[in-house]
């Protein structure tokens, strides 16, 4: 029953990778994956919040009365989201501008509250840390993968940091549908389908 520490970390990368396996946290997944850079930024911010809220919630799990646990979780999560927002504003302003409203919206990202309620409030601090880190990295990789597909097909280039890098030659005609909102749904659907085919037992 009890998983080893490595398993707690690795499960977030494939078995329970949030947008594809749990199909959670789709709002930022669909909205910010226009460029790889945005995906990285969103993923790192979410991982930061996830790791620290998991640690704090699991270390306070015996103090928080169960009737007000959700309220307490939200206070903790909102605090870390605000910290992430201030730090991004201070150090990566252009990225902060691009992600816009989706940074404060990490508060209502159900991956984070889900991990707090289902995992961190019942397990030890170190396990919760590994769980948060694994899920966070899994989320980041999913965003990057989805963003890479969309950006490559939609613009023919990839933006890892600030400047786009041309990948497909000038003869490539950009399929701009992919970087628009409907393209996000189509790309996500196709990737879900591939993930399910690959993981079928």
């Amino acid at each position, binding site marked *: 029953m009890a998983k080893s520490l490595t398993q707690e970390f690795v499960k977030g990368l494939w078995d329970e990778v949030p947008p594809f396996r749990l199909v959670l946290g789709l709002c930022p997944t669909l909205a910010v994956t226009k460029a790889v850079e945005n995906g990285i930024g969103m993923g790192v911010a979410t991982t930061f919040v996830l790791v620290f809220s998991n640690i704090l919630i699991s270390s306070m799990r015996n103090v928080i009365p169960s009737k007000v646990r959700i309220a307490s979780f939200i*206070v*903790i999560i909102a*605090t870390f989201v*605000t910290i992430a927002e201030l730090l991004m504003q201070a*150090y990566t*302003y252009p990225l902060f501008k691009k992600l816009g409203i989706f940074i404060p919206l990490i508060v209502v990202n159900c991956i984070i509250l889900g991990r707090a309620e289902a995992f961190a409030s019942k397990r030890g601090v170190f396990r919760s840390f590994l769980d948060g880190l694994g899920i966070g990295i899994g989320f980041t990789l999913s965003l990057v993968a989805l963003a890479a597909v969309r950006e490559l097909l939609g613009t023919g280039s990839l933006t890892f940091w600030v400047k786009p890098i041309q990948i497909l030659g000038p003869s490539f005609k950009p399929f701009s549908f992919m970087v628009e909102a409907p393209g996000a749904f189509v790309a996500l659907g196709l990737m879900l389908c591939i993930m399910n085919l690959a993981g079928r037992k």
Partner: protein
Amino acid sequence: MREMIKMVVVLTVLCLFSGGLLAAIKNKTKERIKLQLLEYVKGPAVRTIFEGASNDPIADRFDLKEGDIVRNFFVGVFEGKPRALAIETFGKGGYGGDVGLMVGIDTKEDKLIGVGVTTHSETPGMGARAETDPSFVTQFKNLSLKEPFKVTQDGGSINALSGATLTSRAVCAAATDASKIYQQLKPQLIEKLKEFEK
């Protein structure tokens, strides 16, 4: 009853703690965020206006008090002399609210060096062209500060953006405002500029 008290105490302590933490971090990052705003919001406009200046106009800036209002001025060095100033003003009456305008002024000849729109919420493709269409703002280049700036419909010399007269008026109002502030504060401003001579 005991449980009630525990709930209240835990939540209160948690909120107090997070409030304190956030206040501390906000304090620590305040200066940096201000700099980033200068760099990325006002910076591009100031840099375009002061094209060819030999200094960094974002780094060379000063504040001046006018009554209760603190005004922010950027300094441009041309031909070795700090002779240009830029100030941001807000023109009332845009279609979507106030229009922020960075106004560059040549203090030697009392004329405009150029203007650039910084913040606005005008309609894309209509009023927003004030920011994106260079042919509109270049009309302000080298205009004398003696007269208030007006669009042609109001008897001035600025050709309004077609379909966006309100926005054009707001830009003119902002430029006029900047010129008034400059003329009012001119003696102090000239004093301040001397500090930037090297």
